[in-house]
């Protein structure tokens, strides 16, 4: 399986070349959140894509944007029946505006509230009436459909736009979704289910509900700084974006040489203390690739204290401490379902362009992380690169790319 096209919509740029240049420059896109008033939130910063998207489904718009670039970059022609689409996307919630409207139904018999053209909706004192809610949701159906609560609409929209008639799948395993979607696409090509696949991931979680949820988990950086593998890291910063690639069985400059997935089967929120699941995913991906020498690791690297330490120890155990290790999350935040896909693009860049993209924010590497974090971009020819993506709940995906 070979990489033929790349596309991205990121907080650092609306295409992959611009994003790669700014990542190489050490830019960081984390800023105060502009999308809504964050006073009092557990985190008030994020990395937002500077792109106004139409309608309520930002995920779909970002995913399509990246897919168009990747498809144009690939320049392939394919029988529609042999074109597949695999997208990592998460979270079935409706947008917060829709949730508010749904609650409006529940209190409709009690005076309701109005959503003014500008400003905040006004609530009376309410008693939540579940029966009214159940009965009233039918009237909101059109609005719910407009809001498109399903993350599967991203893959469906890409399939429609590119007339893909082959396998179309949405992979939802939280933070590993994007990488797992590329794994699934590579498997589909390997198994002969399709010849070409548009694949990647998208996250659009700069959202009040997700900020509250991640805040409740105490997973967000209180300082508002993402610095994976740094001694002072204290949590992740939410980001958003989409990264897509076009894979094909026809030879190209970069090969997807190894793919693997594993489960920790250990704990709802914490990784296995020895990183056992991560080790198995990395080792299996390397074995699948024929154990090539790894010259660059694009880590999951969330900037949370425990996860980074466990991942670093797992990397050191599996590939040693020689290769430089980076995480794009220092620059563009944590895209959740899209995270593994932007990491994949960075690894492909190392192999194809010979530029090892760095980890922004690392100035004091944590000695408990026995790896070599890469604080600045380096021009070096990477023969092969390893990509990790690990999810809450213990689902892991690893890939190996190498020069063809």
């Amino acid at each position, binding site marked *: 399986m070979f990489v033929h096209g790349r596309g991205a919509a990121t907080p650092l740029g609306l295409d992959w070349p611009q994003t790669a240049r700014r990542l190489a420059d050490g830019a960081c896109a984390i800023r105060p959140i502009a999308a809504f008033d964050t006073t009092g939130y557990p985190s008030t910063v994020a990395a937002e894509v500077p792109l106004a998207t139409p309608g309520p489904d930002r995920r779909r718009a970002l995913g399509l944007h990246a897919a168009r670039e990747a498809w144009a970059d690939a320049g392939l022609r394919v029988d529609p029946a042999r074109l597949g689409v695999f997208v990592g996307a998460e979270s079935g919630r409706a947008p917060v505006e829709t949730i508010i409207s749904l*609650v409006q139904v529940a209190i409709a018999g009690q005076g309701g509230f109005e959503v003014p053209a500008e400003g905040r909706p006004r609530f009376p004192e309410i008693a939540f009436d579940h029966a009214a809610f159940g009965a009233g949701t039918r009237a909101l159906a059109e609005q719910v459909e407009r809001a498109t609560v399903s993350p*599967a609409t991203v893959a469906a929209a890409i399939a429609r736009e590119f007339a893909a008639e082959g396998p179309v799948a949405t992979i*939802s395993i939280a933070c590993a979704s994007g990488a797992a979607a590329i794994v699934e696409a590579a498997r589909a090509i390997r198994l002969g289910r399709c010849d070409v696949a548009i694949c990647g991931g998208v996250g659009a979680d700069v959202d009040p509900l997700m900020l509250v949820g991640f805040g409740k988990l105490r997973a967000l950086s209180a300082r508002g700084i993402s610095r994976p593998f740094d001694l002072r890291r204290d949590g992740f910063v939410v980001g958003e974006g989409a990264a897509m690639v076009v894979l094909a069985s026809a030879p190209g400059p970069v090969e997807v040489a190894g793919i693997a997935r594993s489960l920790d*089967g250990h704990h709802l929120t914490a990784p296995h203390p020895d990183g056992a699941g991560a080790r198995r995913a990395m080792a299996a991906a390397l074995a699948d690739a024929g154990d090539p020498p790894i010259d660059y690791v694009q880590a999951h690297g969330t900037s949370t204290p425990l996860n980074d330490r466990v991942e670093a120890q797992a990397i050191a155990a599996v590939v040693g401490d020689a290769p430089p290790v980076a995480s794009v999350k220092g620059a563009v935040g944590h895209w959740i379902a899209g995270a593994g896909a932007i990491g994949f693009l960075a690894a492909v860049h190392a192999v194809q362009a010979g530029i090892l993209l760095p980890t922004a924010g690392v100035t004091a590497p944590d000695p408990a992380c026995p790896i070599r974090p890469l604080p600045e971009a380096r021009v070096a020819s990477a023969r092969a690169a390893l990509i990790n993506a690990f999810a809450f709940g213990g689902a892991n995906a690893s890939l190996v790319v190498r020069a063809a």
Partner: protein
Amino acid sequence: MRVAITGVGAVGGWGRGWHGLSALDRVPPAVADLPPPLDRTDAFARRIVSRPAIFAAIALSDALAEAGWAAPFPDVGLWLGVGASGGPLTQMEALLRRALDAGALSLPALGRVGLRAVNPLFAFQLMNNFTLCHPAILHGIRGPNAALLSRGAGTVIALDEARRAILDGECTRALAGGADSALHPVTAAELRDHPAPLAEGAAILALGAGTPLAWLEGCHYGRARPAPDPDDLDLRPLGEALAASPAIGCAVAIDLFRRGSRDRARIVTSGLDGQFGVVHLRAA
């Protein structure tokens, strides 16, 4: 190339189990009394884990038992079709109540005090992967995996992935199926004109080792609608349980095999997001 189905677990409005499922012509839409998935985390799980995740845990536990597989499961694969119903409205309600500030919905209030009203794993109830990860954690399942979402056809892909993984030697045993609930108010609104009653549940098949109950012969999926067959049974009276429905359809077919009234079956599903899927089963 076919793969043996050696265990089935199913839970839905009819209760827990799959024997006799093919004789039902309609079922209550909801699982009224959730049986415990496992002992050690029952109370915790009920409080913080989504209903589809609990359904998956129950069905997976029963599939393992029927297949006679004993722990540990370091190399067992797990592929599930999952849904997108979102967080429970009780949590949303609690959060939004706290977000009222002098009668107005206040996003700052939502951020400042709303998070005190929701359970610690609220974020995960908004996401879908815990439908896969929760039963994996309960049973220590650690093999290759994916949670596939297309609210119907994704479950067919999950079954196909499991079958392929066994045939390719990626794993020797796998669990595959689907778990979902269409009874979330947001989903109910979206499906207002759906021809079947809305339902919830899970069904999971144990594949690859043990005494065969049936054979998984193949799966097909894509954007082309399969042609109808005169012998097709209409399973819509059992309800639309989204990602769970194709897997429940497999359980119905295996029950038909058990009763001797069929020896081949195809389960046809139409995903809400434009995908169709077909599963081919044969009696053992």
